[in-house]
């Protein structure tokens, strides 16, 4: 037990205490400036009836719904391509992974330019093909898809890396046996590769969902939650409540709601997929 003491203390100080403190403060009206006063479940009632926070919850679900499976699919596809004897594959692997290690602020600024309605790259390219210019980030129709597109693009790198590592650890003899039995490449992919990738898929899915639910910096830079709250997310509302409105107790309640969301999603996924054991 002594050997785990450092890790235990680290978890206690940086995770345990803040989580419990947040839970306790979520039942108060703590505003940083004055002593917290107990206000029961009022913060939770306020959060669940606040139309903007509810919009944030919906937007977060939509964002996660589109970014997670799409990015996972693309990442798997790229990983399969990069798991071959492709020339310059190290370059391609690096190129795909670069968005993951680039500061989101820098990424968002580049995308701000790409989405610029008058001088942006996207409208220039579309204009070349005769497609009319769009206001990607200030239109209630296009703002969310634009943010989702950046989220997908940015998230591919890490997922690809995990899938690539998993692919390289798959047993070769199974494929050899399948080939001897006459199984096509497609059949091998669906009957061998995908089932064997289940633990990796479970890990990628859980971490991706958590990451999608924590989307913040992209929103902060690209849209500020607008227009008309169409791109606001749960984390962004938590940030605004705590740091712009001084409603720390309320922000804690919103954080607990987010935590419960993630917990339920993870448990549901674990149950649906039989966990990360690879059983099926």
């Amino acid at each position, binding site marked *: *037990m*002594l050997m785990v*003491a450092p890790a*235990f203390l680290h978890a*206690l*100080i940086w995770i*345990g*205490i*803040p989580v*419990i*403190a947040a839970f*306790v*403060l979520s039942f108060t*009206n*703590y*505003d*940083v*400036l*004055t*002593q*917290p006063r107990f206000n029961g479940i009022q913060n939770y009632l306020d959060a669940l009836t606040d139309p*903007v926070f509810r919009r944030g919850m919906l937007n977060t679900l939509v964002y996660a719904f589109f970014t997670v499976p799409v990015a996972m699919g693309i990442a798997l596809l790229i990983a399969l391509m990069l798991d071959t004897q492709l020339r310059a594959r190290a370059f391609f692997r690096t190129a795909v992974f670069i968005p993951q290690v680039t500061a989101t602020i820098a990424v968002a600024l580049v995308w*701000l330019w790409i989405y*610029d*309605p*008058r*001088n942006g790259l996207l409208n220039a390219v579309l204009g070349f093909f005769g497609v009319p210019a769009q*206001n990607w980030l*200030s*239109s*209630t129709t296009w703002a969310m898809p634009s943010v989702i597109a950046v989220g997908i693009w940015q998230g591919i790198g890490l997922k690809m890396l995990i899938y690539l590592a998993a692919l390289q650890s798959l047993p070769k003899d199974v494929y050899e046996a399948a080939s001897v039995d006459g199984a096509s490449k497609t059949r091998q992919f669906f009957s061998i590769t995908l089932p064997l990738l289940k633990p990796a898929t479970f890990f990628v899915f859980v971490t991706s969902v958590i990451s999608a639910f924590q989307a913040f910096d992209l929103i902060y830079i690209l849209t500020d*939650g*607008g*227009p*008309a*709250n169409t791109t*606001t997310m749960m984390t962004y509302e938590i940030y*605004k409540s*705590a*740091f*712009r*409105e*001084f*409603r*720390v107790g309320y922000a804690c309640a919103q954080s607990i709601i987010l935590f419960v969301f993630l917990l339920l999603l993870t448990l549901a996924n674990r149950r649906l997929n039989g966990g990360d054991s690879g059983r099926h």
Partner: protein
Amino acid sequence: MDFSRRSFLTAMGLGTAAAVAGCATTSPSGSSAADPTGPVEGDITFLCALFEGATGKETLEGNLLKQFNEKYPDVNVTVDYTDYGSLNEKITTGLASGLMPDVVTLGVGWIPPFAFKKAIAPLPESLATRYTYEERVLEPSRFDGTLYALPMVLDTRIVAYRKDFFEEAGITGTPQNWDELREVAKQLTVKEGGKVTRVGFDPFSIDLRQCWETFLFGNSGELFSADGRQVLFDSPEGVASLQIFLDMMADGSADFAVSTEAGQPTTLQQGTSAIMMTNNSLYVQLQQQSPELVDKIGTFVLGNTNPAMLQGGTMVSQSASSKNPAAARALVEFLGSPDAVLVASEQRGSVPAISDLKDSEYVQGNPMVAFALENLSKARSEGGTPAWMEIREKIKPTLETAIVGQQTAQQAIDQLAGIANDAIGRL
């Protein structure tokens, strides 16, 4: 060493109690009011949202603070630079951690919330009469009649227009009310191939909250009652101040999609608007980006029933929990002096808060700053309630719901009033 479940839970419980108690004990309300009568000495911190960039740093630390230290050699000032967008976060985290800076820059409208919660210290009334201030300028520095801050720079929201476009359209005077504005904007709107290539009026290049407030004040409306406890903007004047944007969008003379992108020349400079809501710092931008337009752009104060311009700005205040209150007070007084105010204004193209500076070379050489100073009697400020920090965040997204057609102007204002009433009710 063995960790039982009981010892684990005990540790967690003690830790939580310590964390919660830590949060509570850092509250400035529990500290004694800063006493500024002691010796002017010690280390103080200054959270600064002015003097941006390397030039600003050199101006503040290489010039102003050297002057300050000549007078107060025993004071050591550490400057924490931030931008206006992060100022609120810096203050929040400072308060939560018990490391509230001794001297802070605050925005217009921020004094009532911080003074109400006793986060900032009152200043002697004598500082309000030390220099010549327009009374409108000092209004946002007070809470319950007490002075809590000294204004440094002002940023007014005014209307700018292209004189050459007016001339081309044969328009000889600037609009005096909203009806005239609508008519002029329609005349100035240009369509080519069924597509609007120039809007007559661009209200969306400044923050929608501030734009709507300018129109509200110009329509003789008010945000809150004098004591800040009653919402007054849910009036016909408040609704009309939002409806005017919808009407102009319906006319085709304003477009939510046509606004100035961050870091780019304004729509007025690009010729995609003929009239726009802007900030007095536009003049500096014109000099840097479009010197050929300097003489082609004019300004006016718009009103419907009451000419009004919005006055934003930056004020300097003293933390109520400063451990060296005399030094902090001395720095506040210094930063509110004409020397510091003029340098800060010049560095960012702002309006100096002290009226006597209207004869300075800087003001005389900047027509938009001079214009703003001349019209300070028409200036109105946002805020006015201790719940402002919460309410201000909700205004723009709520008004946008009407702009993008999700609800009517009346519904958006009603929703906003509900949010504001809830926030005030929580005080």
